């Protein structure tokens, strides 16, 4: 009987003779690695837990509304595509504030950035790759929620074909509005992350910035309804409810950062948004919330690019 036997040979060093795809491959690698990092793919369960939890939290409203539509049967009273981004905006800000710094801070803290920038990759390629990676993740989240919602509404409708016929315009609208929301929630957290190597500092700063902007905008732009009611109880004529800053209140309403993309969303969908801030901003010319949105995305985007242009290793 023959015995199987093998022998191990040292092949020595072999030079690489395969294809080299240069800068484009480098850019793709940064993008793919960014998506994997944001979702904790290829890492321990500790890195995966947070993205999964936040992802579930952001998806929950869409699932709940879809189930409600399927069981209640009446779609009229339920929040629709136009209101969805407002419902998830706070959750989305928390998601972005916590996850976005993961894409930039460790590379600078661990010094990996010095290995990237000595390869066929410019600082601009790197930062655009990271920005696109996080944009891809946020886009996937906002679109997935809207797709769940749309599917739920179609299936819950008495005549799905009719629902599609009369509501198909919702699809391009939520795609455009989703892009607006995702660009906003990608750019600001990444810009903040470019100035610290500590993820926790970046996350706390972004959440703090968005949270503080809500009461500041509220104090300056929303009228005191209780004071108006009190006067009424004393038998005086109720005064029309006016915010403390009068006409300027419409402008101060723009301070609420989490609503900045929602004002653009309200211009994309024809339905009226009844929230206080939205009503005030709706009185301004349409160009104002659009310009404000562009300033708050292009401005931080430029700062992010400039910061990495000047990075020294």
């Amino acid at each position, binding site marked *: 009987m023959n015995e199987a036997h093998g022998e191990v040979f040292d092949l020595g*060093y072999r*030079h*690489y003779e395969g*294809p080299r795809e240069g800068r484009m491959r480098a850019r793709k690698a940064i993008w793919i690695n960014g998506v994997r990092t944001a979702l904790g793919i290829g890492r321990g369960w500790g890195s995966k837990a947070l993205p999964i939890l936040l992802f579930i939290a952001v998806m929950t409203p869409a699932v709940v509304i879809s189930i409600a539509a399927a069981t209640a049967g009446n779609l009229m009273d339920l929040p629709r595509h136009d209101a969805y981004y407002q419902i998830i905006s706070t959750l989305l800000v928390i998601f972005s504030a916590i996850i976005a710094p993961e894409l930039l801070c460790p590379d600078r803290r661990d*010094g990996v950035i010095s*290995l990237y920038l000595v*390869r066929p990759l410019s600082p601009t390629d790197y930062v655009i790759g990271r920005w696109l990676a996080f944009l891809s993740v946020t886009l996937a989240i906002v679109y997935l929620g809207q797709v769940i919602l749309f599917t739920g509404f179609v299936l819950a409708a008495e005549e799905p074909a009719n629902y599609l016929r009369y509501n198909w315009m919702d699809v391009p609208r939520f795609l455009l509005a989703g892009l607006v929301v995702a660009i906003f929630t990608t750019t600001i957290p990444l810009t903040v992350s470019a100035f610290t190597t500590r993820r926790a500092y970046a996350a706390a700063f972004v959440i703090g910035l968005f949270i503080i902007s809500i009461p500041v905008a509220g104090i300056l732009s929303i009228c005191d309804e209780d004071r108006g009611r009190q006067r009424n109880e004393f038998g005086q004529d109720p005064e029309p409810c006016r915010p403390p800053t009068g006409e300027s209140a419409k402008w101060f309403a723009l301070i609420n950062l989490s609503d900045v993309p929602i004002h653009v969303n309200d211009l994309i969908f024809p339905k009226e948004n009844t929230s206080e801030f939205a009503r005030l901003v709706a009185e301004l010319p349409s160009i104002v919330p659009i310009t404000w949105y562009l300033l708050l995305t292009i401005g931080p985007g430029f700062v992010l690019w400039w910061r990495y242009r000047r990075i020294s290793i």
Partner: protein
Amino acid sequence: MYNLPMPHLLEAKELTKHYGATIALESVDFQINDGITGLLGPNGAGKSTTIKLFLGLIGPTSGSVEVLGERPYESVESRSHLGYMPEHDCLPASVTAAEFLTHMAQVSGIPPAHARTRAADILRHVGLDEERYRSIGEYSTGMKQRVKLAQALVHDPLLVLLDEPTSGLDPGGREEMLALVKRTGREFGISILLSSHLMGDVESICDRIIVLEGGRVTEEGDVSLFTQETQTLYIDVDDHIEELVAALSKRRIAATMDGLSVVVETESEEQYDSIRDAIVESDTRLRRLAPRRHGLTDIFRRTPNE
């Protein structure tokens, strides 16, 4: 048909770099080709600035720097031919060496399937085959240095720039790293520019050195030129050392004692016969008789006018 001359791997021409009023490099000229070249100099000599210029991380104030005939500051693609191992920490703690190297190969332009193979090959060459699926954070300092070298080699560059590769290693780890660097240069056929302030490291593995001081090239050439024999003769003996010195004096050869060695400044080869006779006469047991060699440290002992 014309035969165009092959460009040098690296070339600095009239290279000058100023940081405001501070002069980092001033009219530096040199070329680097195959083999292992040492870039020597004290702190602040301009070594790091030179490496950054070759990597295209900064641009020159005047003059030019070229990698295979291309200017790295103007074309990031030229960096595909270079590898770089920095002195400082540059590794992520939470990923495995295999995954990190695969990613770095892709960032160097290699497609994913090839990148995985290259990562496995290189980790085997640097001796981390068994540990490649462990997180880098769990590695020892020596293993991390190997990963740093591996990431510089993963895309099979023509030349790697190593910045203090033995930094932070114990004597055993230092020897292993130097052997690996030497193997990379000799067996893998990858040219190396080794920046170091440790003369021993440079002397033991480099073919050629470039010495920078105050932003200028002060010495350049083969290592053997700087380690030639001197006129000083060392005679190591076991006993009868005083008798040996007396026997040498009798023959008009000036000698000094240095522990169990006798040091003689020879003037001619004929003196060797007299030295042999003196050893026989003093009945001492000879262990070694050899001329002293210059060391690279001597370069920095010379006065500026020498």
